[in-house]
């Protein structure tokens, strides 16, 4: 039997606000445990939450960028359960009437575009974390670090519209790109700023009803999402084919083995006893607020991609690469304010710039070759001062020293030789030296032309103007 996987994703997006969602404590990562806490995020008796307005703005931005409608009156709810990292014994989240609803994203897999529904986006607070093992000399104990407690999260819940691990990854990558593009999330998956739970089920191909789903927790990289989903699909298919049935449960992905294992069954599932949080008044968002936020939205990657294609005349592939992140797109666009050849700039960014960034693990924001410097280099090629080949060497030098390309060219004497007399002298010398090859060429071995070009370039230490070398060689050999 053929099976059809059905996948829905719940993505937790940690918002990049300076302070927490319900108190003024810092959200900085990696500080001394419990140093960023106050009565509110410690869940002290008598403490009350006050909503951080920035979180609401970020949520509206996320909603507008994923085609959601913004709920005019949304409600915070308490999700009740006991755990030491949850200081109040409940998490403030949203249940009924979340801030964003009914959105979608278009993803592209194998050149096919597909629309994936977004059920809802809601705001909530994160929990703290437990630290196990040796803590300040105490053996066999667990500590609670509440620095992360009350950190703002968005939970983005997709419809079960995804049909393969590739679609899931494409959706996840696109969502990741949007939230980082908007500047509302740092996108750091290792630190847990962008994390994902996957709901996976399988059904016989063509069936009308979805199979029983398992929720897989703890899939914290694009690679693991693919691995976890593929493992889970196969596990469920194997189970069914062996005559078993899939049970509704929560499963944990183990990145070491690439497998999932049962965490708790439906029977053990919590009854979260959601109810509206009486400490927070309903959040009223009027149209004016939505419109104000809409005006603040940056141009989104899809729109920018189209603009790059039409305005700068670059191929769709180039536009896709250049809009992979907002800083990269901004880098490209800044180059175009100094230089008009969209494709030439694109080639250099997609070639030398990205290669050097990757090799050195540098981000585009820290790129030592600024857009102005890069386009200065391109201008030297345009004017014939240096050849493209020399330019690559100059680029490497610029990367190391951050120097102006013109001074590198000058200091190292790399100016292109376009004096036909000087080039002719070199050609004559080569043709005399390689008389045998010349004879072969003249007897019809055309391929040898490249050999002569190479020899001339080598003799000129790469500085000879390649076009002129071609022209003069043609004259000498064929004339």
């Amino acid at each position: 039997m053929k099976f059809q996987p059905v996948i829905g994703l719940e993505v937790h997006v940690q918002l990049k606000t300076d302070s927490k969602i319900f108190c003024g404590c810092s959200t900085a990562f990696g500080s001394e445990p419990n140093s960023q806490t106050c009565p509110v995020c410690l869940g002290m008796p008598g403490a009350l939450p006050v909503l951080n307005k920035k979180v609401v703005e970020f949520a509206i931005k996320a909603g507008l960028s994923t085609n959601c409608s913004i709920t005019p009156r949304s409600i915070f709810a308490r999700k009740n359960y006991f755990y030491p990292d949850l200081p109040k014994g409940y998490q403030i989240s949203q249940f009924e009437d979340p801030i964003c609803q009914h959105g979608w994203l278009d993803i592209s897999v194998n050149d096919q575009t597909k629309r994936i529904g977004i059920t809802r986006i809601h705001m909530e607070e994160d929990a703290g974390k437990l630290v196990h093992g040796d803590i300040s000399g105490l053996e066999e104990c667990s500590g609670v670090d509440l620095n992360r407690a009350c950190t703002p999260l968005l939970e983005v819940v997709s419809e079960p519209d995804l049909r393969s691990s590739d679609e899931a990854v494409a959706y996840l990558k696109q969502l990741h790109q949007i939230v980082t593009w908007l500047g509302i999330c740092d996108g750091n998956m290792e630190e847990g700023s962008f994390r994902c739970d996957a709901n996976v089920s399988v059904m016989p191909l063509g069936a009308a009803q979805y199979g029983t789903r398992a929720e897989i927790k703890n899939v914290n990289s694009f690679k693991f999402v693919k691995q976890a989903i593929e493992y889970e699909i196969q596990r469920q298919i194997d189970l069914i084919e062996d005559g078993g049935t899939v049970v509704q449960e929560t499963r944990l992905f183990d990145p070491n083995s690439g497998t999932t294992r049962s965490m708790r069954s439906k029977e053990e599932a919590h009854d979260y006893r959601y109810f509206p949080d009486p400490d927070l008044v309903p959040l009223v968002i009027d149209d004016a607020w939505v419109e104000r936020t809409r005006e603040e939205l940056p141009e989104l990657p899809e729109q920018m991609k189209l603009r790059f294609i039409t305005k700068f005349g670059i191929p769709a592939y180039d536009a896709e690469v250049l809009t992979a992140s907002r800083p990269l797109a901004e880098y490209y666009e800044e180059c175009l304010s100094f230089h008009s050849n969209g494709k030439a700039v694109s080639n250099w960014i997609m070639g030398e710039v990205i290669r050097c960034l990757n090799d050195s693990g540098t981000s585009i924001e820290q790129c030592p070759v600024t857009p102005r410097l890069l386009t200065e280099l391109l201008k030297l090629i345009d004017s014939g001062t240096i050849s493209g080949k020399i330019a690559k060497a100059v680029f490497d030098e610029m990367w190391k020293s951050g120097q102006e390309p013109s001074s590198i060219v000058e200091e190292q004497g790399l100016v292109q030789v376009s004096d036909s007399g000087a080039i002719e002298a070199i050609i004559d010398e080569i043709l005399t030296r390689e008389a045998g090859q010349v004879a072969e060429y003249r007897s019809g071995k055309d391929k040898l032309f490249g050999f002569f070009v190479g020899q001339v370039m080598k003799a000129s230490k790469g500085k000879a103007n390649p076009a002129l070398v071609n022209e003069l060689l043609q004259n000498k050999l064929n004339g």
Partner: protein
Amino acid sequence: MELFDLTIHELHTMMLSRRVSSVEVTKAMLARIDAVEAQIGSFITITPERAVADAEAADRRFAAGDADILTGIPLALKDIFLTEGILTTCGSRILHNFVPPYSATSYEKLKARGAVLLGKLNQDEFAMGSSSESSAFGTTRNPWDTTRIPGGSSGGSASAIAAQQATATLGTDTGGSIRQPASHCGCVGLKPTYGRVSRYGVIAYASSLDQVGPLTRDVTDCAIMLGAVAGHDPKDSTSVDTPVPDYTAALTGSVKGLRIGLPKEYFISGLDPDVQAAMGQAIGVYRSLGADFVDISLPHTDYAVATYYLIATAEASSNLARYDGVRFGHRAEGATGLLDMYTKSRSQGFGAEVKRRIMLGTYALSSGYYDAYYVKAQKVRTLIMRDFMQAFEGVDVILTPVAPTPAFKIGEKINDPLQMYLSDIFTIPVNLAGTCALSVPAGLSSEGLPIGLQLVGKPFGEETILRAAHAFEQATEWHLKKAPL
């Protein structure tokens, strides 16, 4: 005349003219506490050093000409208010060792005005009760008859006034917890409109119902105290940003033409005859002062107690989840794991009534029962709210008894929760409606026990009920009666 028996405004006049210092008043009050505390048990914690230090600071403010109406006035707080560095138990064993790192906004406001803190007052555990018998720190006795309860949950806040152990106190009122003890102990007690006073730093029982309010010797003091603690607090999202009027300026003494509503559902058979008689007399007093009476109906009154015990317990079950033994408060010894630690700590830390309400609330919120209980209760709450709003279209104030009977005997209802719950039958609807009400002394029973009169106002209509209570007080002498200690 004893220093411990004066009102805020009387003491202020004396301090201002240097006839007495705050230190003298405070020491007199501490001596009074010493003398009668063993009989009454108003306090969980007495803070004599803090009180004297506060009083000295207050006297310096008087010397500097920087004194306020509350400067140097010895006050005490229900143990539900967080006081930085001072034990705060909420009447519960689970907080027997809890010394908070910050203070409630209402206490901060009183402190900023130079008030003196005498200590922390006994109460029902987590403000759950109507008799102050559920405290983990002993039962408070009614100064009018020490075999009787002072009311609850703010029992200590009322008994301390009646026993002259504090000039004024703060309590909290979720279903009557200020008004009912005020009624039973013969003092003035006001529950403000929901949102009028910050709840920040006040241990939550039922967040959508809890309000902070004063208990005082007379209506003028009540107006002074309310003015001091009222106002918007950026730390409490449910506090309302409307200006705080000068409540003492509202005390004009006149109720001429005031339209007073008498809800037929509150004057039922089964009402204690002494309470009924006191209400009749009060109506006569108001009539003679020129007020007009209107018969009104609050048709959903019958559902109020049931509605309250769903909403309040649901919120409480969640509010009390934080007492888990992890970060503060009681942690059981010898637990074998996390679940065991939770179970043991909470089993040992909470008393029977608190456990009962946590279980009720957990049940009401459970999947499959939520719509039938919690959601339905919220709908009824809306109807009850509407009852009041409709009634207030035709009247300025609603007059009712505070409690169906005067103070009952200690132990009388402690094993009969339903009877205990019904003692709040006239106060609970006001909390559900979110509006304001007060209790003012209006008589003594045949056994010499105080009987309070409840005046319910429109939302943010505190000035009107204070004016009406003040006019009544001017025309009667009930507030001058003393507990026979």
